[in-house]
């Protein structure tokens, strides 16, 4: 029987070679997710090691400047390792430990998930190998060195488009060669079941905290929650506990690259169609014969031709909205938040900031927006300088 369905999306489209490994993860997760001792251990790691709960910060200057809704920033950029990725990684690494695994492998786009995985591996004593597209090792050289510093081996992927999608292909291939001692720490709410559910659960700490924090500060829920979407893990985490609150708008910001009207974008909902790839049925950027399209974004973390199956379902049911944000808009937001609030966001997160800048002025002063700042932008400084025509050597 097909498992892990979100409406028509999801499933377990994975080679037979990996099925027992995936079933092993599924069984372990089913067991440990309801185990109070496991959850207590994870909470302790999240709080004492990763620095949770992350702050919900009232962006007063940004609010005043935009002249509309009150803007709160959920500060996932303040987590240890600099992004929301650590939430999922600590969960999966702890699960891998319980499963008796000794080696972690992972794909990475911007390098944030790779850094988080290498960090957890160092902390918990795993061997660690990270797969990263050549295009991304070039534009995120700092993160490559961080991973090596943490003791991980970084494999540069030169197949296909040499970006995140190809890094995922290569990590799946690596997993098929060695499943006994190895856990694949998938970095987003994608892939075959149980990954979309498990990663969402580990990331849902974002909206669990944000919901309590906004109720404590404002005594009411927000009118909108905005997050950037590549595979969609920070957005799924930021949305999840607000899904039952039907009047809270959930808005995912896709990477429109040079524009959704061009062929250089990664806007899966705007331009994609239904397909089956990377273990799941969902929406993908592809051609009429089902060949996955090369995608483009200034942001390595959003440069992915698909979207997690639960997002696809939230789109189908219209519970969430997905909007495209171009490179230019994201870069402008990157600079805007830096100057206005003294917060340099990841270029991924800047896509969410960009839409908040559009939406806030259309709302009233008693309305509230929460923007998930999924990561910090230190890693992007050199790339943004290049984008602006300045050559900075890291």
């Amino acid at each position: 029987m097909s498992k892990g369905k979100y409406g028509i999306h999801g499933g377990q489209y994975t080679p037979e070679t990996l099925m027992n490994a995936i079933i092993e993860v599924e069984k372990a997760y089913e067991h440990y997710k309801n185990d109070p001792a496991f959850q207590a251990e994870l909470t302790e790691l999240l709080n004492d090691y990763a620095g949770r709960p992350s702050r919900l910060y009232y962006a007063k200057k940004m609010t005043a400047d935009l002249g509309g809704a009150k803007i709160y920033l959920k500060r996932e950029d303040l987590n240890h390792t600099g992004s929301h990725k650590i939430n999922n990684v600590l969960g999966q690494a702890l699960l891998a430990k319980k499963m008796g695994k000794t080696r972690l492998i992972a794909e990475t786009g911007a390098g944030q998930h790779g850094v988080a995985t290498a960090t957890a591996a160092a902390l918990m004593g795993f061997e660690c190998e990270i797969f990263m597209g050549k295009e991304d090792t070039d534009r995120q050289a700092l993160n490559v060195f961080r991973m090596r510093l943490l003791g991980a081996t970084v494999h540069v992927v030169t197949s296909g488009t040499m970006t995140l999608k190809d890094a995922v292909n290569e990590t799946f291939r690596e997993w098929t060669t060695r499943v006994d001692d190895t856990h694949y720490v998938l970095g987003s709410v994608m892939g075959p079941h149980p990954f979309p559910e498990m990663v969402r659960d580990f990331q849902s700490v974002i909206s669990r905290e944000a919901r309590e924090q906004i109720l404590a500060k404002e005594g009411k829920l927000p009118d909108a929650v905005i997050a950037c979407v590549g595979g969609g893990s920070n957005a799924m985490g930021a949305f999840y506990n607000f899904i039952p609150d039907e009047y809270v708008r959930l808005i995912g910001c896709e990477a429109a690259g040079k524009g959704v009207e061009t062929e250089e974008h990664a806007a899966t909902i705007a331009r994609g169609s239904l397909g089956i790839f990377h273990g799941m049925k969902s929406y993908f950027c592809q051609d009429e014969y089902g060949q996955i399209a090369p995608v483009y974004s200034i942001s390595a973390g959003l440069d992915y031709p698909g979207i997690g199956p639960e997002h696809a379902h939230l789109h189908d049911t219209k519970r969430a909205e997905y909007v495209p944000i171009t490179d230019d808009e994201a870069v402008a937001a990157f600079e805007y938040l830096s100057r206005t609030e003294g917060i340099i966001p990841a270029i991924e997160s800047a896509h969410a900031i960009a839409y908040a800048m559009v939406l806030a002025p259309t709302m009233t002063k008693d309305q509230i927006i929460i923007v998930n700042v999924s990561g910090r932008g230190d890693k992007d400084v050199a790339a943004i300088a290049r984008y602006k025509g300045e050559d900075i050597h890291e």
Partner: protein
Amino acid sequence: MSNPNNVNQISRIFADQKAFIAFLTAGDPSLQKTEEFILAMAAAGADLIEIGIPFSDPIAEGPVIEAANERALRAATTTDKIFAMVGRIREKTAIPLVFLTYMNPIFVYGGERFFATCEEVGINGVIIPDLPYEEKGEIRELAGGHGLDVITLIAPTSQDRIQMLARDATGFIYLVSSMGVTGVRSEIKTDLAAIVDDIRQVSKTPVAVGFGIATPEQATAISKLADGVIVGSAIVRIIAEHGAAATPILSDYVRTMKAALV
């Protein structure tokens, strides 16, 4: 050309001999050459040809076949052009033909339309590496409706799943010899005999072994414990090295491999 005996046609090749199954990627280096290679391998003694429909992201393939997929797509190979090629081949040979491709090219083409066209041009079965037992239902129904077998893959890690998978199998069972992706290996360590025994307890469907087989010595050894031998990467490598001039080399290779089966 419609073929009402599709289902029987695959198992027939195992009836009184060990079968040699050859894989190549359609459109590498061109569909015209693929057609020539298939006819040459059939004439040289191949019993079944697996035709790879190239996919942008072949996650079960090693570097050799992955590169062939990339070359074929760069040569503008499409599913429709491959169907047309198979139609031409079917006028010249009755050898069973099976497609190997991933879920997405089939799903996006439209499952019903894909399998109806398979039947029309004379394809006998399909191998889909990213379609496990758990997701097979709908595809098996669509394919079966057009007389095609959906070939069951069994892996060294299938363990407690082996008999569940084997009970379900038609055409032949594709036993994956080793962990990992496709590609030539110097040594196969899996206890294949034990897996074949497990299969035999519940199924009479012929078992062919693939992944990592390249030499006549390996073919001899494998054919002693299974009904057939599948070779992919070694053939694709010959095509990669010799390109348009590969035909006589492929014929010699297939003849040698077929003769090595016992």
